[in-house]
């Protein structure tokens, strides 16, 4: 397994897209925190959650990066080379998930703490201190959400195999579908409670009306991710490479 992990790490970092994605994710997230902190004025003090407004930028870009990590293998047929070198397909794909997830997790932590730190540098209001458990979960939890989202993206990438298709699904689903379902009369809100990315968001930013606790929400997101990953592994093992 360590060999597989090392292999996947080399594969990931010898292409350009993870570097670009990392730069963009950090730049946009922290940049958003700067914008918010600089323009914040008036009566409401700047709080921890304000510094985390940009975290969704980072999340979406990490999603793109993770999906590309596997779809580009299909596009350039390097997946065949990979399976030729290591016929244990589940092992290969799990190793890729781990590597991508670790990178995503690290970037998530840097993005979240970086956003908080720049906000803190610009504005020294005491409300910006990480004092409660909720505050800590909101910032430190970003890495967990990023890592899980990365695994989910790899799974979707394995299932779809095309960059364009995988990205369309992975961006349209959380950004549009999950938000718009709430507008369906009567049943919309109840459906939304069981949307995976909504739950991931509620882990960081809990809402009182949610049926699950914050950690319950994260668990649900992890469950959806696991289900997709298992589906992806089964399909990859059955399918011709």
């Amino acid at each position, binding site marked *: 397994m360590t060999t597989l992990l090392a292999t996947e790490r080399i594969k990931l970092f010898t292409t350009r897209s993870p570097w670009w994605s990392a730069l963009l994710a950090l730049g946009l997230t922290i940049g958003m925190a700067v914008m918010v902190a600089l323009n914040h004025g008036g009566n409401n003090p700047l709080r921890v959650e304000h510094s985390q407004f940009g975290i969704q930028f980072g999340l979406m870009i990490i999603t793109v990066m993770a999906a590309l990590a596997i779809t580009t293998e299909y596009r350039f047929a390097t997946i065949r080379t990979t399976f030729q070198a290591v016929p244990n397909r589940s092992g290969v794909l799990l190793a890729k998930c781990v590597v991508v997830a670790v990178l995503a997790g690290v970037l998530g932590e840097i993005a979240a703490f970086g956003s908080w730190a720049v906000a803190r540098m610009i504005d020294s209001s005491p409300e910006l201190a990480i004092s409660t458990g909720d505050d800590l979960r909101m910032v430190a939890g970003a890495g967990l959400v990023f890592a899980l989202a990365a695994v989910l993206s790899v799974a979707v990438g394995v299932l779809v195999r095309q960059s364009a298709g995988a990205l369309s699904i992975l961006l349209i689903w959380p*950004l549009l579908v999950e938000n*718009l379902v709430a507008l369906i009369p009567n049943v919309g809100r109840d459906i939304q409670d069981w949307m995976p990315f909504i739950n991931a968001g509620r882990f960081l930013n809990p809402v009182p009306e949610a049926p699950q606790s914050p950690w319950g929400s994260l668990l649900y997101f992890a469950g959806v991710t696991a289900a997709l990953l298992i589906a992806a592994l089964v399909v990859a093992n059955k399918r011709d490479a």
Partner: protein
Amino acid sequence: MTLLAVERMKLFSTRSPWWCTAIALAITIGFGALMSGTSNAASPMNVAATQFGYTFGLVVVMVMAALAITTEYRFSTIRATFLAVPNRPTALLAKTAVVAILAGIVGELCAFGSWGISKLIKSSADLGIDTAYEWRAVAGVGLVYAIAAVIAVGVGVLVRHSAGAIALLLIYTNLVEGLVTLIPTIGPKIHRWLPFNMSNAFITGDADITTRPINEGPPPAEAGLGPWPALLYFAAFAVVVLVIAITTAKRRDA
């Protein structure tokens, strides 16, 4: 005219436009059906609510438009194109026109399809398209799709990679414009002048007679201009993107 025919042949001899058209129609009309099916006395159906899914169709159409040009780069058929038609601006304008026309037609089909299915399901509801607002809400969808397709082609020419272009378009339209409003003080002011907010203002702005609660359709936009100027603004933005794209393509090695 010949070039328009050429681009039409190219577009329809691949599979992605068919797929995207089918998905756009299914989602928008499906949501129209969902909306009318779940409506009741407490939240009655109206014309605006039938267009609930128009933003879905919009993103799918933009993906289709971007792919129409990025796949040419991916498979290097853009070189074959420029060999056959060395006048690059003409070739790209022809493609943009064809894609925009298709997007417009898909938009009208989505809009009237959603409206039609709602009328079938809730024949009792007041779904007559009478006011200027109601016409814009339904028939305007095609215009917005066509202009959005022009933007997507422009971005596709500039970025040249499917993944990059799609990520840029989807993240911008669905995340950036929305998140901008979260910036305190200046955020909402900037948002009033962002292009896709403007296009939304054309569809949902000036909700004259049909004043409606937020859960009955796409929420009305807070834009800096009235509906028709907003559409012009949106179109002007598309033209700027396209001009930059064509200038770049002309200068760049194919």
